[in-house]
């Protein structure tokens, strides 16, 4: 009854149920934080250039370069169960065939509250291309700033922190050499 084995068994069972309850409570507590901060996102310029695909030599396709300006204060998203924030800027458009395309063109990982005031003037970090290799018939795109809040323990949540007010059209492709 009071053997060492029984004591160890009881103790570890009690300890693990305590830890699990605590973790469960922490995970549930993050539903109490419902901050939804909004920032400003503006697209400064969109340019389309023809180029050669790095992966498929001989295939020429069009690449879009987007200059953007983000200013957002995301500090309200940091609470005791926030491990990090994955922040990303995406272009959204419905192509000529009527299907939705979402492309992430920039991202940033925010790990500390002190870094959560975002002021970025930048250009896309990732290649922005279309599945048809051309942006000629692609309707104007919306750009939005999204975030993924990753907790220390519990459920991953997503949200939107900014959006362009009007769709931004793709200009016709231009040559690299200016005339």
């Amino acid at each position, binding site marked *: 009854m009071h053997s060492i084995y029984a004591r160890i068994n009881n103790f570890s069972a009690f300890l693990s149920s305590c830890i699990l309850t605590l973790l469960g409570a922490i995970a549930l507590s993050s539903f109490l934080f419902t901050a939804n901060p909004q920032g400003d996102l503006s697209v400064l310029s969109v340019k389309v250039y023809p180029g050669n695909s790095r992966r498929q030599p001989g295939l020429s396709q069009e690449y879009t370069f987007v200059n953007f300006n983000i200013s957002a204060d995301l500090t309200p998203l940091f609470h005791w169960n926030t491990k990090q924030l994955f922040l990303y800027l995406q272009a959204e458009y419905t192509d000529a065939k*009527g299907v939705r395309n979402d492309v992430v063109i920039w991202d940033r990982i925010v790990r500390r509250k002190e870094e959560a005031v975002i002021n970025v003037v930048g250009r896309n970090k990732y290649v922005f291309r279309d599945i048809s290799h051309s942006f000629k018939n692609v309707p104007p795109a919306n750009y939005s700033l999204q975030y993924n809040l990753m907790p220390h323990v519990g459920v991953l949540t997503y949200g939107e922190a900014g959006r362009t007010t009007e769709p931004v059209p793709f200009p016709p492709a231009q040559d690299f050499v200016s005339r």
Partner: protein
Amino acid sequence: MFAEELKTIRRLGIRHVLLQLLNFASVIASGLMIWKGLGLITNSESPIVVVLSGSMEPAFYRGDLLFLTNPANVPYHTGDITVYKVPGGQIPIVHRVLETRGVVRRASSSAKKAAAKGLADEGKEGAVLRTQPEAEVEQLLLTKGDNNHIDDIDLYEGLEWLERRHVVGKVRGFLPYIGYVTIAMNDFPKLKYALLGILGLVALVQRE
């Protein structure tokens, strides 16, 4: 060494040993039932996975436990963290969706019916636009690990895009470090056998 245990077994009789074996079997069976039941609810072949690599650091480290769901007919979004396994790939990979593309495929007759039926609740779903009900929209995905510099095309074993059928599930919940036990057991197989052996022995010998 086992004289004491053998004596115990002899004293308690064959009936007791059989009962203990039955207990042991029911523990294993219920574990399997929970696993398969979870798989059924989440529509994912493996609803709980352990992170094996550091390509999603600092979000996920080796040994973190991830809970997945894979609801049918719900499109994936950029920023979702998916677990996928391409044909020919060795292990499932946990990476984030960088691009989602819709492509129009000609639908089969059953899909046509489903599309006509589902047209009413299109509005609330809305992420994949269906302009023609007779055509089926399929999603192509491109993924990237947060800790990698380039996207995953080189991991797709010759495929150019990830398709829905390659995706095991989307990460919904997260529990740190717990899965490290399985990594330790994989790295040191003797540990696994020792643990199983001890557990089995204890279950057999233990008196209630």
